[in-house]
């Protein structure tokens, strides 16, 4: 007897799939189609004009640049935090581990006003930086700080499980063959965690690119200087420039799809790595 034959005995396929599809259509698909339809009513020159206006280009540039810097900072420090949490034992480790997810759980407006207060020239950390001539709040550096905060958990949570599953015997083998600790890390450990690290960095970048709440307070929102793309979309909508807002939003949607594709490819890569190991 082949047990496979009994697969379709499970009930509820029509009901669960029907409900799922209607829900996805009503809440996700139809509203998104609405944007595409709205974008089609904008003429091509209009679209190009609003997406390539000087202010839009400056905002796109800042968003991309700051998101890349924040993602790289998180790549370095996220890997370090994951390493320390997995490999070393110190008091309060589990509490700190739980707190890494704070940026996921804290409303972004709360994060925004807290970061602004901390890094303003009179704030706890801003005070320390001011004598060094470093101003964080209301500058581009402030944008990077907010985007780093918001992307912090992605890299840690992507790398942590891979570090936990690593076979210590490979490291021992490298050491017994005469590799220094740094060589072991560079040539043995890093290649195994690289797919997960890149996935985490990409996720952090994607989140940073579309972030709004935590940036709006600390950036100061100066057009051409500290205005990120999401702020500009909000500004356009507030001026009832629906065409401009839609044009930029559809650009953002396109970028989101590209990032989603990249993440899927990265995850397929890390699965292959895992299968080989």
């Amino acid at each position: 007897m082949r047990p496979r034959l009994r697969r379709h005995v499970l009930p509820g396929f029509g009901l669960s799939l029907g409900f799922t599809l209607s829900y996805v259509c009503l809440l996700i698909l139809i509203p998104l189609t609405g944007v595409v339809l709205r974008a089609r009513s904008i003429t091509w020159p209009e679209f190009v004009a609003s997406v390539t206006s000087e202010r839009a280009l400056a905002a796109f540039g800042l968003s991309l640049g700051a998101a890349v810097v924040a993602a790289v900072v998180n790549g370095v420090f996220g890997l370090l935090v994951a390493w320390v949490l997995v490999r070393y034992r110190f008091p309060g480790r589990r509490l700190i581990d739980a707190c890494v997810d704070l940026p996921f759980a804290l409303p972004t407006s709360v994060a925004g006003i807290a970061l602004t207060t901390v890094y303003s020239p009179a704030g706890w950390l801003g005070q320390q930086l001011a004598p060094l001539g470093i101003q964080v709040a209301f500058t581009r550096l402030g944008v990077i700080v907010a985007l780093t905060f918001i992307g912090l958990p992605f890299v840690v949570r992507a790398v942590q499980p891979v570090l936990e599953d690593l076979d210590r015997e490979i490291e021992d083998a490298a050491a017994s063959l005469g590799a220094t600790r740094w060589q072991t890390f560079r040539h043995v450990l890093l290649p195994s965690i690289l797919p997960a690290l890149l996935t985490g960095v990409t996720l952090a970048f994607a989140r940073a690119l579309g972030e709004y709440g935590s940036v709006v307070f600390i950036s100061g929102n100066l057009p051409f200087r500290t205005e990120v793309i999401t702020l500009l979309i909000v500004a356009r909508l507030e001026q009832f420039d629906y065409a401009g807002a839609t044009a930029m939003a559809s650009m953002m949607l396109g970028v989101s799809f590209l990032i989603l594709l990249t993440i899927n490819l990265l995850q397929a890569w890390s699965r292959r790595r895992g299968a080989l190991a």
Partner: protein
Amino acid sequence: MMAGTDRRTESRVVRWTLTAVALAFLLCFLFVPLAVVFMQAFAEGVRAYWMALVEPMSLAALRLTALAALVAVPANTLFGLAAAWAIARFDFPGRGLLITLIDLPFAISPVVSGLVFVLMFGAQGLLGPWLIAHDIKIVFAVPGILLATMFVTVPFVARELIPVMQEQGSEEEQAALALGASGWQMFRRVTLPNIRWALLYGVVLLNARAIGEFGAVSMVSGHIRGQTNTAALHVEILYNEYNFAAAFAVASVLALMALATLAAKSIVGRRITQ
């Protein structure tokens, strides 16, 4: 081999340095900002803190936030269960595409998510003229806030359940059916107990996002105090009015809920790995 030349682990100095740098990073980016929320909230004393919270506009904002969570959490929990059952238990064409569609709200900027509903239901939107003719308000009213909250929280439960259910397989469920259980009995007695921790984990995350969503809700809210102002939005209004103590007082309530979320997440997460 002498301890000093042990190459299988880092020297004590390296270990301490790495730990110190990692903790300093977390201090600057996590712990100091979190501490500041509570310090600022009580900057003008306990009485001012309490008055800022029980003030009618703050209470209305907290009520609206609770309403958004009360709608989005059950709706997306039910959706997550149905989607996970269909995706993890059956094979059908387009399954991969459906998973991508469900994950889509995570990939889209909150601002764009909110704008989507403005372009659909706003006065200038596709359905705008029809809605105005029938005197139905969705955007810049409570229904818009509920819709935006539901949109951004769609994936949470489904994406926790699908991998867990795929890994468990359906043998136990098929055995229950073979022993004469009805579909509902099988779900209640076999499926639900097997996935309860993953389900709870997803619900905890879903609830946190529903309470804290800012960008998407900000786009559809219209910021009418006492009517379309959630707690996360109220924080912004108070802060922009330079009413810092009150802003941080409301923020501290949201921060406490975030800390409760982290505690619940960590406890439930440990149950899943056991």
